[in-house]
């Protein structure tokens, strides 16, 4: 009696649309995926081990190389953890500047997600349009801290330099122009029937499965659970600002994609409020020259564009950490991918992977 045979296909570490060096072993029955396995570790650089031989200020440039698309939030998470351990007070102006930069980073990261989703579905024009917008933000960030991607902008106790004069008018101009460009992307992609057929109803993540797997960030909020670390455990000055937690209820790829646009809108709101209320003052708090942290351990979470980033620092009293562990949100998010991928076609799992938006830098560290 003729039987069909299942095919093992390797979406190898070198692949045009696996967001970095990620390997997925698929078992296919014709075109349908019957099982998927994650294989990670191709970008492991031993950052957590390196942390044990660097002093606290020296480790800061490493934090923006983990999630290289949203570096300011990682900087913020790390310096806040050390500040909690040392009991340092950060001036209010520095906190406001940190919030502005973190939200700008969040917008760039979401723009990259939309761009990669477009090109993974083979619309390279959408990719170009989103990256054109991202270039403007990167120019603004370069104006402040001299680098576009690996910023190393924040310091323990504040930020490294104050905002230059041309930054705030440039930022206000950009905030005014962005919604029109996003409408153009909506016209090109979101309303397109082919795009909707590729993403609507694909890869539905039920909310209880999301919570059981520990998924956080936009992937969780697209399934209907309104959990955001900025509201649940407020840090920095986020309680000064008026913003909503965007939620969508279908949990499919289209919702995860649309939620990023909602988040960009909310980030723009926060930036506007921060610019309006930016106080004068110092940008660095009182911090000793040689930073030594008393023995103890602290775990602190911040909200990045992928989910909740956690920093766990164990100190033994010296100027180097004894153990530093980072909870990368993409590492946890990608754990739910084999569940989501089962039963869909190969082209669908590309769309699901793009909508989860993993970044290999923070999965492998």
């Amino acid at each position, binding site marked *: 009696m003729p039987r069909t045979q299942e095919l093992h296909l390797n979406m190898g570490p070198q692949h045009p649309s696996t967001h970095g060096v990620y390997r997925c072993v698929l078992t296919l029955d014709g075109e349908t995926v019957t099982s998927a396995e994650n294989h990670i570790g191709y970008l492991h650089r031993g950052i957590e081990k390196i942390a044990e031989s660097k002093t606290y200020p020296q480790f800061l440039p490493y934090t923006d190389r983990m999630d290289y698309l949203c570096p300011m939030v990682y900087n913020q998470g790390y310096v806040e953890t050390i500040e909690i351990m040392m009991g340092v007070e950060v001036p209010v102006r520095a906190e406001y500047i940190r919030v502005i930069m973190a939200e700008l980073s969040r917008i760039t990261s979401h723009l990259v997600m939309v761009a990669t989703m477009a090109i993974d579905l083979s619309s390279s024009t959408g990719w170009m349009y989103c990256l054109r917008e991202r270039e403007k933000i990167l120019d603004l960030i*370069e104006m402040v801290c*001299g680098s576009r991607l690996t910023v190393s902008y924040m310091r323990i106790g504040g930020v490294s330099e104050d905002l230059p004069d041309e930054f705030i008018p440039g930022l206000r101009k950009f905030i005014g122009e962005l919604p029109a460009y996003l409408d153009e992307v909506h016209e090109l992609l979101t*309303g397109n029937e082919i795009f909707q057929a590729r993403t609507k109803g694909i890869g539905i993540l039920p909310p209880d499965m999301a919570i059981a797997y520990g998924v956080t960030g936009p992937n969780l909020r697209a399934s209907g659970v309104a959990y955001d670390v900025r509201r649940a455990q407020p840090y920095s000055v986020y309680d000064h600002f008026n913003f909503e937690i965007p939620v969508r209820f279908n949990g499919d790829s289209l919702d995860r994609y649309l939620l990023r646009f909602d988040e960009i809108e909310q980030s723009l709101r926060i930036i506007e409020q921060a610019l309006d209320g930016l106080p004068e003052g110092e940008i660095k708090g009182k911090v000793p020259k040689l930073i030594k942290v008393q023995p103890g351990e602290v775990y602190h979470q911040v909200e990045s564009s992928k989910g909740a980033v956690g920093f766990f620092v164990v100190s033994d009293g010296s100027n180097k950490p004894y153990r530093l562990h980072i909870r990368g949100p993409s590492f946890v998010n990608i754990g739910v991918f084999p569940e989501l991928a089962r039963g869909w076609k190969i082209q669908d799992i590309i769309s699901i992977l793009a909508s989860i938006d993993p970044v290999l830098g923070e999965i492998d560290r």
Partner: protein
Amino acid sequence: MYGEGLLKGLRVTLKHFFGKHVTQYYPEERPQLPERFHGLLDFIPEKCIACGLCQSACPNRVITLKTEKGGEDGKKKILTEYGMDFRYCMFCGLCIEACPKDALIFTQEFELATYHPEDACRVLYRKQVE
């Protein structure tokens, strides 16, 4: 109408087809870099007091400092050689922040490619032997 989204998309691309380019024509058009740009580092030897704070601030052990004892009382540290290995430099700026005398600055030079990796290891100052 079925197909309306498709037509809107075509309209967007057609509009951009006749629009301006956003490309910067690189070797002919130089980029406008902000003044805080993290380019190649430059060293001002007259300001340096050979304290070694930059060397201990660097995460990657990029800076090599050679000093000798000299001066009027024979106890002051005098700088003889200052080298930076740009193969490992992250251009993070921690050394510049650590320097108490502002002897290190960022320039705007970014075209740093060399044919041999050893050429990236630069000696920024060597004391002339009289």
